[in-house]
């Protein structure tokens, strides 16, 4: 590939190659403070490529390839090249990661203990994680929490925080000193703007944490909270894991261990201030 960059997010190394300069430059700029893959060897490769040579220049369309691919995925315009790169890295994790049980969850840490937040797109995982990061928590990741089947610890995967639509302005207000990527308009998920995790999140990204609380936030509902039984938590987390089936019995052990040892709550919230106050209150209650 004409252009390429390598980086490590948490324990996972990536090499992103591209037919265009811009997506690689955007990655280099936003991931400037991230380390290189261990021993210089990436775990996964991502390729951003033009399906036909002339499509590099004429109406450039970025196809996402790599070690693991979704056949016939629609390409993105070059203006969304950064998003394509991020999607490509996510895709490698979702389809190819076998070492950890992948939970589609954001995670933050305090005092060595992790709070996991999971839910469907729009539930507020990324927003709450970003806001908690600005309030003294260590961000571990806004997309994937990596559960180690052998230790039960959660490893961080602090990629760029992906803020969507209304969450963009909320995070811009909460993190006025934050480093943001370009505003990506009209993506398949609306407007997206990335926020670079703070220096502490990057410096500590190799440090795992013991999970202490699992939240299932839901944005846009009257404030309500309820305890969730381990069985419901288990079923929801299997749905929130992209590699539960692939991991077989290791995944079963990891997930049963998690739901048996860690309390879970469903949390409905009408606005982020309410959610943050509830998070702090619930966190105190599980200490």
């Amino acid at each position, binding site marked *: 590939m004409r252009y390429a960059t390598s980086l490590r997010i948490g324990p996972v190394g990536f090499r992103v190659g591209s037919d265009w300069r811009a997506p690689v430059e955007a990655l280099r700029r936003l991931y400037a403070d991230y380390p290189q893959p261990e021993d210089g060897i990436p775990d996964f490769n991502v390729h951003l490529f033009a399906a036909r040579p002339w499509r590099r220049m004429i109406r450039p369309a970025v196809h996402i390839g790599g070690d693991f691919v979704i056949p016939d995925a629609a390409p993105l315009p070059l203006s969304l090249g950064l998003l394509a790169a991020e999607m490509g890295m996510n895709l490698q994790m979702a389809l190819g990661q076998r070492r950890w049980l992948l939970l589609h969850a954001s995670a933050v840490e305090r005092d060595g203990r992790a709070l996991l937040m999971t839910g469907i797109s729009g539930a507020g995982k990324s927003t709450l994680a970003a806001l908690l990061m600005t309030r003294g928590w260590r961000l571990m990741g806004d997309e994937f929490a990596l559960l180690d089947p052998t230790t039960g610890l959660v490893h961080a995967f602090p990629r760029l925080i992906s803020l969507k639509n209304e969450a963009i302005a909320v995070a811009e207000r909460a993190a006025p000193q934050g480093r943001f990527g370009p505003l990506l308009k009209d993506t398949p998920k609306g407007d997206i703007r990335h926020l670079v995790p703070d220096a502490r999140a990057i410096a500590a990204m190799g440090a795992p944490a013991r999970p202490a609380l699992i939240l299932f936030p839901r944005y846009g509902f009257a404030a309500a909270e309820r305890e969730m*039984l381990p069985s419901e938590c*288990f079923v929801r987390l*299997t749905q929130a894991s992209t590699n539960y*089936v692939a991991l077989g*019995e290791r995944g079963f052990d990891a997930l*049963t261990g998690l739901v*048996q040892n860690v309390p879970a709550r469903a949390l409905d919230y009408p606005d982020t201030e309410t959610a943050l106050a509830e998070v702090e209150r619930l966190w105190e209650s599980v200490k």
Partner: protein
Amino acid sequence: MTRYRAAPVATLRVVPLDVLTLIFHRASGITHVVDSPVPEILEALGDEALGLDALLARLGERFDLADADPAALASRLDELAAAGLVERL
């Protein structure tokens, strides 16, 4: 008469959680989320092949069955056979 045999114990990981029980079936790699009386049926079968009446009698000895119904038990066993957790002989 049809007899039923549970999947060998060594192929099952049974984890009771709360109202529901998880069963990981090693032979298939499938996770089953089950409610009572499934764990009880599998335990009552043990490693024996039992007919419907013998199984119902055994469940009756172990549990206080107020409404012992062979037809209901047969349906549960059919479901378990379809799921691969019980074999029809």
